[in-house]
């Protein structure tokens, strides 16, 4: 019952926000902005730039709110807009170019038992170049398929696969560095 009530409340708030009710809009912003800023941070290392992108993305959320069809989760709909905004920011601002490299292997990561903190994980992600980072985030965190990633980034499906492969290899080395550092061998 609680889920249904929450859903009704959400619909009411959305309807108010579509009518430019600033209070309803702020309600939506307060509820979702922390998570969305976290997503932006995954793609953009500088927190201020990440926040700028998040605000621009929320602007698009409110202008397109009337087009929300209430199919699937509201958070998922917002998340898509945020991720697309991050991608366009990186492509435009940082002028990422993807080398059309067809080399990729199907080997998975080595089985790693150790647990890492969120900060370590973010550190690992930050170490990736923009191209590898985008493909890795879209595949491993957002769960998109290579075909979808290729469309979103304007690249070939093969390029997407090779970028992921490079990303994983790089992460592997970074993880090893981290582990060695933690174990105190350095």
């Amino acid at each position: 019952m609680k889920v249904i009530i929450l859903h009704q409340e959400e619909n009411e708030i959305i309807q108010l926000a579509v009518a430019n009710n600033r209070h309803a809009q702020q309600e939506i912003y307060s509820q979702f902005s922390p998570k969305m800023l976290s997503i932006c941070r995954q793609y953009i290392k500088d927190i201020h730039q990440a926040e700028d992108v998040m605000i621009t993305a929320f602007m698009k959320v409110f202008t397109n709110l009337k087009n929300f069809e209430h199919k699937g989760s509201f958070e998922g709909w917002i998340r898509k807009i945020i991720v697309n905004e991050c991608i366009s920011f990186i492509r435009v601002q940082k002028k990422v170019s993807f080398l059309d490299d067809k080399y990729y292997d199907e080997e998975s990561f080595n089985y790693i038992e150790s647990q890492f903190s969120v900060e370590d994980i973010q550190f690992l992600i930050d170490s990736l170049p923009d191209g590898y980072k985008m493909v890795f985030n879209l595949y491993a965190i957002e769960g998109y398929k290579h075909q979808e990633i290729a469309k979103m980034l304007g690249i070939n499906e093969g390029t997407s696969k090779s970028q992921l492969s490079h990303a994983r290899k790089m992460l592997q080395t970074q993880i090893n560095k981290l582990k060695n550092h933690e174990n105190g061998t350095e």
Partner: protein
Amino acid sequence: MEPNNIENQIREKLNSREIQPSTQAWDRLDAMLTVAETKKPRRNFYWLAIAASFIVFLTVGTLFFNENAKETRSIKSVVIENKTQKTSSEAAIETIQKDVNATEKVLKKTTKALVQTQNKGNMNDNDNVNSNDNDNIKNQTAKTEEAIAIVIQPNDKIEQIANQGKLNYIDVDDLLASVEKTSKTEKSSVKINSAALLNEIDGELELTFREKTLNTITKKYKEAKVAIANRNNQ
């Protein structure tokens, strides 16, 4: 392929993370929203103006299109007529040109004769002037002048026919110009007629409506009169 343990860990931990935005963030978003809202109402007027001007252009365009269609039909008929006239005049000109060539030859002969007579005249002047020779020379010059006159006549005819031909050739342009003039006058006249027609129709409509209302009123009045008059009757 085993699920990547590290990737699952990464995903879970990053998805559960939240970063609080700065306090200025909402203020900036609020400002952007108010700017967007104030822009919206103005846009409606812009679209109305575009729609209105589009409709005006359409109506004007259809009017011009209908009138242009009439002009093209009239011009086509004129062109066909001129073509038939040209062929007949061309034939006439050909026959005349033959005559011209013949008369040109005669002209040359007469000029030669004239020159010879002049030379003779000059020679005679140097010697004793012979009145008979002068008379002969005068007669010959008179004859050559007549010949030249005769020669000139067909040339006049040629010129006349050429002018006719030219007229025929020019007719197209003249006709086009005249058509344009008449079409302009027609346009003006059409405009007046259409406006007058519209007024007539409007007048007629109004009249018919008036008439209808008047008729109904009079009918009802009469019916009421009759009803009152017959109220006692059963």
